[in-house]
C-alpha cells in the first residue's frame, strides 16, 4: 500500500497538500528548473520552507542540493520558475541570508576576529566597533583566546565554530548550510550540532541544511526533504515532530532512518511512506 506522495509531474500541488504551521515562507521555490549548459541540475522543484523551521535536504550526490542553496542565496538565478525569500523575489545576494559550506572558508589573511567582523564591516559598522562585537561573539563560544590569531592556528572544529559565528554575526534570518559538518570528526560534529541547535533556537532564524549524514538529519530536522537525481526532483517531504534533544534510540526516528537509508541506497524514484505512517510520525 505504498503511496506516491509527490509525483514529479505534480510537484506544485505539494505545498497545498500540506498544512503549514507558519504561514510565512522564509524561502519558496516555485516550479524551479536550473540547467548548466546541457546539464539539468534540478527540474520542476517546488518547495516552501516555513520561517523559523529547520529544514534538511538529503539526496544522492549530484541531485542539485547545493544548486538549490545557491538559488536561495541569490548566487544563481533559476532557468525557469521563481525563488522568493520572505515573499520577495530573490535577485541577488541578500544581507539577511548567510551561507556556510563544508569547508569553513575563513579568510586566512585575516585574524579570527576580523573574519567574524567581516559581515559587520560590510554593513558599514566602524572597524573598532565591529571588532569589539566579534570578540564578544567569540567569547560566547569559548574562543576568546584565539580572536587575535589567524584561522590557521585553530583546529578544524574551532574553525567551523568561527565560520558559524561569522555567519550568525550579522543576525541573518535565513541560514543556508551545505554539508557544514561533513569534514568534522564524529565527536566534534555532535558538539557542533548542539551548538547550532541552541544558536538557531535563540536566533529564530530559518535554517536550510544539506547533509549526507542521516543521523544528523534525524537529530536536527523539523522537516526532511528527500531528493532524487538526476535531474534533481523532490521525492518526498516529511515532518519530524519529535521534541529535542532527540535520542538516537527513539524507535520512530530509527524507523525513519532505516527508510531514508533505503531511499538513498536505491536512490529510489518514488517515496515509500504511506499516508498513515506520515500521520503517525508527524504527530509524534
Amino acid at each position, binding site marked *: 500500500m505504498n503511496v506516491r506522495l509527490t509525483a514529479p509531474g505534480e510537484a506544485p500541488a505539494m505545498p497545498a497538500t500540506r498544512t503549514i504551521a507558519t504561514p510565512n515562507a522564509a524561502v519558496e521555490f516555485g516550479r524551479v528548473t536550473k540547467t548548466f549548459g546541457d546539464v539539468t541540475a534540478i527540474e520542476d522543484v517546488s518547495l516552501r520552507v516555513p520561517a523559523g523551521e529547520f529544514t534538511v535536504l538529503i539526496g544522492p550526490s549530484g541531485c542539485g542540493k547545493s544548486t538549490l542553496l545557491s538559488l536561495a542565496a541569490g*548566487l544563481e538565478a533559476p532557468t525557469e520558475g521563481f525563488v522568493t525569500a520572505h515573499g520577495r523575489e530573490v535577485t541577488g*545576494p541578500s544581507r539577511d541570508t548567510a551561507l556556510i*559550506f563544508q569547508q569553513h572558508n575563513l579568510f586566512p589573511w585575516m585574524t579570527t576576529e576580523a573574519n567574524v567582523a*567581516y*559581515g559587520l564591516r*560590510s554593513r558599514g559598522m566602524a572597524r573598532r566597533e565591529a571588532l569589539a562585537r566579534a570578540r564578544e561573539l567569540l567569547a560566547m563560544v569559548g574562543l576568546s583566546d584565539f580572536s587575535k590569531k589567524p584561522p590557521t*592556528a585553530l583546529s578544524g572544529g574551532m574553525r567551523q565554530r568561527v565560520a558559524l559565528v561569522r555567519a550568525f554575526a*550579522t543576525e541573518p534570518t535565513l541560514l543556508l548550510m551545505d554539508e557544514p559538518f561533513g569534514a568534522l570528526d564524529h565527536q566534534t560534529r555532535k558538539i557542533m550540532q548542539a551548538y547550532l541547535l541552541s544558536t538557531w533556537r535563540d536566533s529564530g532564524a530559518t535554517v536550510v541544511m544539506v547533509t549526507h549524514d542521516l543521523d544528523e538529519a534525524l537529530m536536527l530536522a523539523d522537516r526532511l526533504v528527500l531528493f532524487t537525481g538526476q535531474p534533481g526532483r523532490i521525492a518526498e517531504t516529511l515532518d519530524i515532530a519529535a521534541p529535542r534533544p532527540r535520542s538516537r534510540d527513539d524507535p520512530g526516528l530509527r524507523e525513519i532512518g532505516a527508510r531514508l537509508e533505503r531511499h538513498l541506497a536505491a536512490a529510489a524514484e518514488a517515496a515509500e511512506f504511506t499516508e498513515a505512517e506520515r500521520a503517525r510520525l508527524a504527530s509524534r
Partner: protein
Amino acid sequence: MTAQAATTHAAPADAAPEATAPPPPRRAAAPPPLSRRLARRFATPLSFVFAWAVLLGLWELGAAAGWFSDRILPPPSQTIPFLLAGEATVGFGTQRTGLMEAISVTLVRISVGLVLGLVAAIGVAFLILQVKLLRALVLPIVQSIAPISPVAWVPFAIAIVGIGDPAAIFVVFMAIFGSMCCAAVAAFDSVPQEYRKVARSLGAGTAEMWRTVLLPAAAPSLMTMVRMSFFAAWMAVLAGEMAGINSGLGYLIIMGQQMYNMKLVMVGIIAIGVVGFALDRLLLVAQRRIVWWEDAQ
C-alpha cells in the same frame, strides 16, 4: 637492497614504539629547539661563503699556475683592488661614470619598470576579470606579447623615446607586462569560488570584494610573480643597456669588452650577481611580510 631497507626501517620502529611517537606536527606548534634554529639560520650563509671561498681559491690558484690567461679571466687578486681603487669607470672627462652610478641608474630603471608593469598588469587583469568582452579581446593580445624577447623592443623604444631611462624602462615594462598580466589573471581566476560566495553573502560589494578577498587571496601568487618578474626585468635591462641604451651596468660591461678590459667586465658581472641576489632576498623578506599567512620559500 630491499632487505636492507626493511632492516633499517625495523630498527627505529622498535626503538620508538607508537605510543611514544611525537604528536603530528601542527602549524601553531612550539618552535624547534634553539640549536636547530641556529643551524638553519646559519647553514645557508655559511655554506654560501664556504662555496665561494673554494671557487675563488681555485680560481686564484689556476691563474697563478697558468692554467688559463689572467687577461681573460682576471683572478680576484686583480679584480678586487681594481674595484676598490674605483677604476671601474667608463667614459672620459665629464662623461666619466663610475660603478655606483651605473648600478643606481640600472636599479632605478628596474624599479620603475617593475612598479609600472605590476600596476598595469593588475589593472588590466582587473578589467579582464570584470568585463567579459575584454577577456575575449585583450587577453589573447597580452598572451601573444608575453613571449616576445624584451631586447626585440629596443629599436622601437629608442625610436620612440630616445636613448636613456625612458627607453630602458619601456624595455623592462615590455619584458614583464605580458607574463605578469597572464599570471595575475590566472591568480585571480583561481581564487576559490567559496571565498567569493561567502564574501558576497556577507554583503561585500565589488570594490570591497577586490580589496578584502581577491587581492589578498591572489597575493601569494602575485608576490611570486613579482619575484620572477624581477629576474626577467634584471635580464631585460642589461640586455637593453648592451643593445644601444648607452648607460648603466650593461653598458659598463659592453665598454669593458670594447676596451678589452676584462677586469671591468668582471666587476660588472660581480655587481650584477651581488645586487641581483641581494634584491631577490629583499623581495623574499617583503613577500614573507606581506603574505604572512603563507609559507613562502
